[in-house]
């Protein structure tokens, strides 16, 4: 099964002295558990997109101010949530933040044949999909279905992948390590009223193209999409 790991840093906690992510990445490569991952630029570089009554509303900053902010992501392959959580707990940020582990909803969007390879150069962004609790009730199978959008960005060679996330308590967990003790909370990250329901990784020319893509995704009509640049190596 696939999992998305959101690495959340608490800026009020001191960075652990042994905070080197390399051994963790090497372990993931050795065991085959870590598929890929990237750090994101900090939340002050975020832009949030909403569409209401056909009008695109663009605002500066993340979708919600939260102490433990998303600082990056990793995609994992694991046999169970327990196995994914055990590996996530070894991530150095678990000591000065929280690691949100979410099972990917495989098959939510059908795979397409003959998907062109993504463009070779561009700027990479992480889209965090955050449906509004009330507005999501207004979505129907047709209006909320992202399949057509996914097909479109595939043809534009603008996608590096993305998934809907499961939100049942037994498919996700938030992990913190404090004073050497591993603390596990069942369910998605609970510190914000709205929860991240999906993500996309896009490769585009610039922020304008990223915002244009975000504004055409169904989530922007029933909630918000946070657009975060990834750190370009």
């Amino acid at each position: 099964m696939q999992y998305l790991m959101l690495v959340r840093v608490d800026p009020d906690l001191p960075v652990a002295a042994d905070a080197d992510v390399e051994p963790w990445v090497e372990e993931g490569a050795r065991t085959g558990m870590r598929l890929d991952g990237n750090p994101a630029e900090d939340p002050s570089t975020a832009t949030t997109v909403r569409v209401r009554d056909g009008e695109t509303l663009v605002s500066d900053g993340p979708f919600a101010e939260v102490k433990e902010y998303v600082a990056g992501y990793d995609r994992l392959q694991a046999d169970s949530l327990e196995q994914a959580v055990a590996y996530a707990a070894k991530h150095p940020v678990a000591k000065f933040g929280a690691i949100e582990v979410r099972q990917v909803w495989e098959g939510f969007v059908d795979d397409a044949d003959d998907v062109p390879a993504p463009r070779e150069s561009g700027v990479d962004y992480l889209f965090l999909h955050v449906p509004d609790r009330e507005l999501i009730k207004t979505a129907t199978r047709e209006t909320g279905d992202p399949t057509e959008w996914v097909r479109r960005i595939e043809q534009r060679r603008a996608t590096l992948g993305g998934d809907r996330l499961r939100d049942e308590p037994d498919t996700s967990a938030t992990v913190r390590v404090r004073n050497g003790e591993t603390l596990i909370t069942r369910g998605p990250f609970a510190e914000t009223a709205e929860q991240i329901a999906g993500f996309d990784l896009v490769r585009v020319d610039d922020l304008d193209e990223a915002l244009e893509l975000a504004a055409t995704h169904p989530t922007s009509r029933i909630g918000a999409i946070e657009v975060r640049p990834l750190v370009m190596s």
Partner: protein
Amino acid sequence: MTEPLAAAFADEWGRVVATLVRVTGDWALAEDAAAEAFAAAAVTWQRDGVPRSPGAWLTTVARNRALDRLRRAATERSALESIAALQETRGSGGEEDAVEPDDVPDDRLRLVFTCCHPALPLETRVALTLRTLCGLTVDEIAAAFGVAEPAMAKRLVRARQKIQRAHIPYRVPSGAALPERLAGVLAVLYLLFTEGYAPSGGDDVVRPSLSGEAIRLTRVLATLMPGEPEVLGLLALEVLQDSRRAARTTADGALVPLEEQDRGRWDADRIAEGRRALEAADRLGGPAGPYLLQARIAAEHARGDAADKHAILRSYDALVSLTPSPYVALARAIAVGAADGPDAGLGALARLRATGALPGNHYLPAAEADLLRRAGRHGEAAAAYRSALDLVRNGAERDFLERRLAEVAPGPRP
């Protein structure tokens, strides 16, 4: 600063920064290099006189300063690439051997669109425009916003970082995105103008430097985008409103309403410029947008007693259908009062009040008070003035309302 240098500063700062941003992609470097070039100009021009083409001189010097800085810091490939780009555009001779301005594309339009990008907070868009396009110092901008200098410096640093790290493009948007983005640019310029014209707090009714900067920038925009009627409309609106600046307040800072203003103090040059911009916009044709409609209203008011009150009302009717804002509805109701008499105006205001619009705002009771006063209903007018006084924040507007209250309710205040 000497006068030729001050003039060059006002005219060329934005152009120099815009070119440097395009060539280096580094906003902070662009501003620093421009500042160094202007400092160099202060010394050299004092000694040798102002060069034939001040803009080209400044751009060349700023480029060379940026190049020197990049050389000193050249450790990364990207920096070396920037140097290569700079060298291509660098003249072969010294600083005096400046490139001709015609060789330099005008980058200010890109700079305007990037500074006014919707992914930046609104206040930051205004501040960044003042810094990079108008060349105001951080101190001056902080004072204009009523915040401390370090806070404003931090805000500007954050904005430049976001532009760079989130990859906000340095480009004029095209196609379907242009009208929406242009509307955003015009909104920032008008906000800049109105903050200069009627600041939301404090006691100065007019901060002339900000409205002056807004007018200057709008003129530049009208030159760079001559086919956009709304840009001309905004320019007309700004200069027509500004034409009444001297007449709008008395020597001791008190507000003077339009119909009581000394028309001899209206700026005829400004009014003429406004009418020219309006005529140019009308020649472009097409449906009138919100700025053009407001400019038509202002132009009608500029005719003084000859103003056609029904033409003003027709423009307001069109404006209400374009911009469903309670402020526009309020202005329309006042126009109804002027065209069809106080009772009709009070009816329009009553309908607006019934919608629950403008709660906690002094404009609605102040408008009611004014029409009641004109209708001779002094008792009700006094009550309305008192309601407005409970809500008003600007000191000059408060003084005006108190003066009006004294007119309808003579004697000591209760």
